[in-house]
């Protein structure tokens, strides 16, 4: 998550233009999806490791990015193991892990503002009817809302626990959705108040 995981730094990866990083990520992900042999995956892993080293990042940063996806990876591994066997299951998992790590390399070294500027630069050649500023703002807001929604979730969870509701999904989701929508409304007004067209 961009807003949570950005690690300030002055490495060549940090200094690289955001658009270049985003395009490199797209190319890398496409390449990883196209390769169907272990040598290709090994090369991709080497590239990601080199990127982390060049950015001066610790392996624990990569693990932190992978951790939220571990259960999904485990589920995919189990299904693949059942359908195709251990070798292909491991291959698929490694491929997904590399995609996540490559994306996190971009997010760890790019601020939200730079990211949005990169998206805007990428959209520059688009025709006038494409709402470039709105698209960029929407992306920025999604990133801004990640920690907000999480803090609301924590608050609601604590409030429910205090009332003895330990594992009640409805009691958790209803106030979370209501409060998030209210926040979204107020943020939309705040954006309007700050002269955004």
């Amino acid at each position, binding site marked *: 998550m961009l807003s949570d995981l950005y690690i300030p730094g002055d490495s060549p990866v940090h200094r690289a233009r955001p658009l270049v990083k985003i395009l490199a990520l797209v190319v890398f992900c496409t390449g990883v999806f196209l390769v169907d042999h272990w040598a290709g995956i090994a090369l991709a892993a080497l590239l990601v490791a080199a990127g982390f080293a060049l950015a001066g990042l610790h392996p624990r940063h990569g693990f932190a990015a992978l951790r939220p996806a571990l259960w999904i990876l485990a589920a995919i591994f189990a299904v693949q193991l059942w359908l195709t066997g251990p070798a292909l299951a491991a291959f698929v998992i490694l491929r997904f892990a590399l995609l996540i790590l490559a994306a996190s390399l971009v997010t760890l070294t790019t601020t939200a503002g730079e990211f949005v500027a990169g998206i805007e630069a990428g959209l520059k050649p688009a025709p006038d009817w494409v709402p470039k500023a709105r698209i960029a703002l929407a992306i920025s807001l999604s990133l801004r809302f990640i920690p907000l929604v999480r803090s609301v979730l924590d608050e609601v969870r604590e409030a429910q626990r205090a009332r003895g509701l330990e594992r009640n999904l409805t009691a958790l989701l209803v106030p979370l959705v209501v409060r998030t929508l209210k926040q979204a409304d107020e943020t939309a007004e705040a954006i309007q*108040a700050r002269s955004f067209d």
Partner: protein
Amino acid sequence: MIRFRDVSVEKGGQPILTGIDLSLCERRIGVIGRNGSGKSTLARLFNGLETPTRGSVTVDGQEGGKALRRQVGFVFQNPDNQIVYTIVHEDLEFGLKNLGLGKEEMRARIDTVLGRFQLEHLRDRLTHQLSGGEKQMIALAGVLVMRPRLIVLDEPTTLLDLWNKRRFMAALRDLEQHVVLISHDLDLLNGFDRVLHVQNGRIAADGPPDAVIAGYVAGSQC
């Protein structure tokens, strides 16, 4: 000069404000009233966030639209809902980009405002990691960099502790802009030029703080 001409606001068929007629030219104006009295709706009329069902609101002759919003800055109760970007200086740039300013001008304005409130150390901080007081100061800074003529604040100190409330009010006192402050905290209105008491969608009292607040307090005794 702010002018409300026979302003009424209805929502879902229910009157929220009725027949508001005001001319406001004082530098510091307070608005008080019970929950649900209509004071937040009144505040939102100042910069066009709310459109009157009947009547008109003008600020220096401007009515509604972007031109009005450029003249009137708005600070919300919860800064979390006002901050758009994840890094402080990027959030401060947001309003300035909307004004179409160049990079040098943006930097100069941000430097000035951060310097004025001794907030330079927050420039590169992640916004969601700031304390409540810091967030509200950054929300105010985000409005001030746009150099509005009037600033409307809707209960901006509700979520602040005593220390941050004093700090925020000190910042507010020194502003050269005209200020409209909606607040439940009557102490904050000391030294204000004029106070409006909103009750059931109407202006129940309008005058110097001492008289209006005394009447409001007397009316709320059990």
